[in-house]
């Protein structure tokens, strides 16, 4: 019998959790098919199918789904509502499976398991895997064990993507004697690490001779950052964005911070304001870079160059 082919669109939460999904599905004996990296045609296709003024990452997701839908048996679009006890995902992420269903006809089967830690607590993964087991007709305990084990598989960082990822600032190698300009990049993984959407920002900054830093904050960091602002941010990714901004502003070795966000992003419109006014107490160079489908490579590059020129003048 031929294996079931399961499609995972390379957009949105792919950049945060895909490794664990891919690993689990292939261990269950399914053929995992992922869409290629975003390119202009995928985005164009997404925009064609999107309704209203959905944001750029969701449009991208629709493009990837359009590409996959005819070549797979099942499409995996999990509904992540909350990944922690006291927070939520963005509403568009919560409604994502329904948006995909609404925007296309002739879809293959969609697996949309619910991941809701706020409601299910420690049983979240168990509840998450139930619909998966049913959809691929396998024994639920096996599926559960696999997903549970693979939960914390870190997202692989291919070197050629030219992204710097580090848990701690000290690991980044900033402390070299020949001091380079260090630029902290904050933003959502699905925007930053999609090379087409972010216009290969990391590589460009590197080519200009500076050191781009992205970091994934840990739990204690988040608690610290949330204590600085008046009310903790209740969006999962918003919290990460605010925390890494806080860490960058605190650290003397970081010369400037760029906040990359999608132009009509709801949570980022507020967290951006928090970052600019509340966290940037020491008036470090800070730039908000908003990206939409009309953003051009050159436009982004000019702004980055100008930003770096400014830092050079400030530090000189």
């Amino acid at each position, binding site marked *: 019998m031929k294996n079931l082919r399961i499609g995972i669109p390379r957009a949105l939460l792919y950049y945060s959790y895909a490794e664990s999904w891919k690993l689990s599905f292939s261990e269950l004996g399914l053929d995992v098919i992922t869409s290629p990296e975003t390119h202009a045609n995928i985005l164009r296709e997404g925009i064609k199918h*999107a*309704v*209203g*003024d*959905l944001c750029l990452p969701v449009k991208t997701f629709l493009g990837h789904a359009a590409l996959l839908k005819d070549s797979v048996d099942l499409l995996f679009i999990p*509904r992540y*509502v909350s990944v922690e006890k*006291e927070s*939520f*995902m*963005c*509403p*568009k992420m*919560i*409604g994502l*499976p*329904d*948006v995909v*269903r*609404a*925007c296309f006809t002739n879809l293959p089967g969609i697996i*949309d398991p*619910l991941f809701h830690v706020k409601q299910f607590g420690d049983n979240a993964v168990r509840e998450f895997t139930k619909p998966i087991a049913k959809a691929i007709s396998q024994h639920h305990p096996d599926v559960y064990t696999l997903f549970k084990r693979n939960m914390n598989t870190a997202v692989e960082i291919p070197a050629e993507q030219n992204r710097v990822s580090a848990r701690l600032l000290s690991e980044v190698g900033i402390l070299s004697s020949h001091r380079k300009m260090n630029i902290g990049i904050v933003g959502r993984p699905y925007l930053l690490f999609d090379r087409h959407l972010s216009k290969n920002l990391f590589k460009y900054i590197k080519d200009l001779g500076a050191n781009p830093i992205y970091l994934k904050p840990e739990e204690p960091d988040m608690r610290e950052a949330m204590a600085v*602002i*008046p*009310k903790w*941010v*209740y*969006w999962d990714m918003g919290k990460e964005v605010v925390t890494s901004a806080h860490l960058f502003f605190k650290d003397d070795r970081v010369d400037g911070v760029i906040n990359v966000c999608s*132009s*009509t*992003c*709801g*949570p*980022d*419109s*507020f967290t*951006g*304001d*928090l970052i600019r*006014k*509340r966290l940037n107490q020491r008036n470090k160079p800070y730039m908000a870079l908003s990206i939409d489908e009309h953003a051009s490579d050159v436009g982004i590059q000019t702004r980055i160059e100008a930003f770096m020129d400014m830092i050079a003048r400030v530090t000189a």
Partner: protein
Amino acid sequence: MKLTVPHMGLLSVAYTRVLRQHGVDMQPPPKATIKTLNLGVKYSPEFACLPFKINLGNMMEALDNGADAILMPGGYGPCRFGYYGIIQEQILREQGYKFTMSTTDNPDRLSDMIDTIRDISQIRNRYDGYSVFFLILMRMAALDKATALYHYHKPREVNRGDTDQVLKQAIEMIDLADSYTKLFRTMPEVKKMYKAIRIDKSFKPVTIGVLGEIFVVIEPFANLEIEKKLGELRVEVRRGVWLSDWLNDRFRFRPFRRNQTKYATKLAKGYLNFASGGESIETVGKTVLFQKKGVDGVLHIMPFTCMPELVASAVINRISKDREYPVLSMTFDEHVSEANIITRLEAFVDLLERRRNGSISRY
């Protein structure tokens, strides 16, 4: 302490007089005008939604008029509303305003609301707290009832403008009814006033269901008085979201009224399977309901960049295609122009009329 709460439809009418009687120095912001909006837009984050901007403008104008305390509801939902208060406080402080700010962090819980009322007023007794809070809720329900009657009479009125006068009067009367007894006596009078309007009983108006983000639906300033405009086009509005329903779902003060959120969730099954915050599930569920009930079309209104309603708008677009049901989504922000809205409404109403007469089978 002069307390101010940003406007949301007729809510300020419901609480101002009652709270004043219990020793709260209420100072509601002046009615929103274009100046309010401009103030709000000037200081808000670029992509904040329209309610945020209007609320901020409200606060600034109220503070300019001498208020020195702000009460802003909060919350922890996926929608941005829960974070409004924090960002607004930050902006106001930056502009040099001096004030105290309190937020209710869990507006869904009765005890939190009662505590908030007790914090700001001279009410110390818990029982009185409940009694005052429920009076406010009943007054809100009465105002909604008067608005619903307005929707029925407006398209049928013989003399243009009669109904608007009656609504204005009704709101004043409900405002004066500051106790349960007075309120129960006022309602029949309000109904009598509406009965007295000369209407064309034989006229069968086109019906449009108005759905969407609650602030934009119930605040005439935010939606450029869209319900009045529809009434003037001789359309009967069936509003799908009411503030009193929203409150009733949480505080059950009208025990015989169905829980609208649960009802909508049931109706939305298959299209939107999980409430993604805001009024998304109501929008989707009620679109299905209106279609079943034979309402001629649905007008879905939302603020620009509203996250939950964007999900809903994608989904109801699909319902519209599947069931051949006319749906019009409109986005409101500070740049929306009146002429644009009127043109689109007229075209939509034309379409519904022709569809009803059978001159077009599809749309």
